[in-house]
């Protein structure tokens, strides 16, 4: 065996003999697939708009609407009557032909067909395009047979309404919702991982250098030490995130004219589109504050159990990542598939808050804030009660002596 191999083998063997390091490596391999399977089993079928039944509600007073309805029925859609939003309880998509459909076409003003679908999570966001294609195909055939040569682009508009909770959102709003949810999740993920890494270094260094022992014997209470570590870690993580945020801000500002088609006149429109995201992100930031404190408490708990810097650096961010990352998997699940447990899962809140804000229930932010704040307080109280100088320094666990007397 070569010298390099001997050194590498020693490093790997030494690291893997620490139960916490081993756990932090193996647990994700088990937990993440289990969560993904759970979401897939619970919400998978709901993602599928293509396979779901389609209803067509014809309110047109003229003949073209009936013709489009019949054509759609021949392709598997169910003719139906009633409130299209209620029909969404039974159908995957509802095609609504309005009263003045024929009149608009004949007069050359054009007409709109509305397509209603339910919001079914980010993966299903593009599925209703298939139904849109079906509507265009059928209408094109009907118009060419009945009206003659007519530009479908001029004659037909398809207005998509996406039902989320009690609100019907436009496509722009759904884009904003997806953007806000993704940004919300990444804010919490980056904040949590940056914080946990900062705490791992701060506490791990103290433990490795045995300075924690000196400090705990000094006239500094454990509570004050925890507050100081929390504050310094938040400051360092904020500096790190601030630098990333500033860079990202410059990136977005630089890119805005390009997004608006290169014309400066288009910038305000793009900015308008961002307003929905910004509004939801304000709610996200509010719930992020207690989540950050919760992360700090958990990170401190894990870091204080680590014997040295390396163990702290391996176990603390991994533990936090494991706590936060499952929220990302919920991002792909349809709202119907999210059970009550998902709403009690604190790290899902930055994703659920935009969903509720866009769904017309902004009060959820207050509930999430209350729950997350209570959890953060409990975590710090638990940390204070469980941790003491003896446990930190000697680290006795399950009847085994961990350090020389």
């Amino acid at each position, binding site marked *: 065996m070569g010298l390099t191999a001997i050194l590498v083998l020693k490093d790997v063997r030494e690291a893997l003999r620490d139960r916490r390091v081993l756990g932090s490596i193996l647990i994700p391999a088990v937990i993440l697939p289990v969560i993904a399977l759970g979401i897939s089993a619970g919400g998978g079928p709901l993602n599928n708009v293509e396979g779901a039944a389609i209803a067509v509600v014809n309110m047109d007073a003229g003949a073209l609407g009936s013709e489009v309805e019949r054509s759609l029925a021949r392709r598997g859609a169910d003719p139906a009557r009633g409130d299209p939003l209620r029909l969404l309880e039974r159908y995957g998509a509802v095609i609504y032909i309005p009263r003045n459909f024929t009149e608009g076409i004949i007069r050359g003003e054009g007409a709109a067909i509305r397509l209603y679908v339910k919001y079914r999570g980010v993966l299903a966001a593009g599925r209703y395009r298939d139904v849109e294609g079906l509507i265009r195909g059928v209408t094109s055939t009907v118009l060419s047979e009945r009206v003659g040569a007519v530009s479908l682009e001029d004659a037909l508009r398809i207005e998509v309404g996406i039902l989320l909770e009690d609100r019907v959102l436009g496509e722009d709003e759904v884009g904003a919702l997806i953007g806000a949810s993704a940004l919300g999740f990444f804010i919490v993920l980056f904040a949590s991982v940056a914080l946990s890494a900062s705490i791992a270094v701060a506490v791990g260094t103290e433990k490795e250098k045995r300075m924690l022992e000196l400090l705990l014997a000094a006239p500094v209470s454990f509570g004050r030490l925890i507050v100081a570590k929390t504050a310094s870690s938040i400051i360092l993580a904020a500096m790190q995130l601030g630098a990333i945020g500033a860079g990202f801000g410059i990136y977005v500002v630089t890119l805005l004219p390009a997004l608006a088609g290169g014309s400066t006149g288009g910038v305000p429109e793009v900015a308008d589109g961002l307003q929905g995201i910004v509004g939801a992100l304000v709610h996200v930031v509010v719930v992020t504050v207690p989540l950050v404190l919760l992360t700090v408490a958990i990170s401190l708990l894990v870091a204080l159990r680590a014997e040295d810097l390396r163990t702290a650096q391996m176990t603390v961010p991994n533990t936090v990542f494991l706590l936060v990352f499952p929220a990302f998997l919920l991002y792909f699940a349809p709202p119907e598939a999210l059970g009550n447990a998902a709403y009690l899962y604190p790290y899902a809140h930055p994703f659920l808050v935009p969903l509720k804000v866009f769904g017309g229930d902004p009060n959820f932010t207050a509930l999430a804030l209350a729950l997350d704040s209570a959890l953060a307080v409990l975590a710090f109280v638990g940390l204070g009660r469980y941790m003491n100088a003896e446990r930190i320094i000697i680290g006795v666990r399950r009847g085994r002596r961990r350090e020389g*007397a």
Partner: protein
Amino acid sequence: MAINVVGLHKRIGGREVLRDITFSVGAGQIYGLVGPNGAGKTTTLRAVVGLVRPDGGKVEVLGVDVTDRRFDHVRRDVAYLPEEVMPYDNLTGREFVEFIHGLYGRDNVEEALEISGLGGRAGDKVKTYSRGMKRRLLVATLLALRTRVLVLDEPTAGVDVSHAVALREAIRSHVEAYRVAVLLSSHNMLEVGYLCDSVGMVSDGRIIVEGAPSDLEARFGARNLEEAFVKALRWA
């Protein structure tokens, strides 16, 4: 007595690591604990500074039980040097002294730097210091705090001979000047013999024999403390 330990017992992980430890240290005295690795010296020191809670017996420092809430107020007068502790790499020597003295509400930085012998290196980052320089910085920082009780775990470990001698002299003169009560543990019998007024030899969690270094040498018919220690272990 500045430090009074009576019948101290401690169990860690189901094993009794301290058994009926009893000793006391008065103001202006240096008491040394010597013994093999794992004998219980460090645990005793930790119990004295309140880091380890006794399972039995009593530990009083400056008249206050270390398990009493009032001990938090006493901590300002107790300084503890853990074994193998290392100062922060990215602070300068001066910044480190300022940090520790800030925690104790003291400002004897220049005195600490003088005792440390760092000279012009005090403004350099600690990571550029040798192991011996780091230890000198630590001991000097704690000495200059002028606390009434000083607990030192292997104070000169890793320090070269000439600097170790200087540190021992600094400790001795500090004790005489400020009547500090010092409890220290060491494997260096020469150091213990030079510094300590009284020595407790610890084995398997018990003090097997105690006395002034010269008395122990006489009692075991030994030429020096090291020989007395080996004979004491056999006798025990």
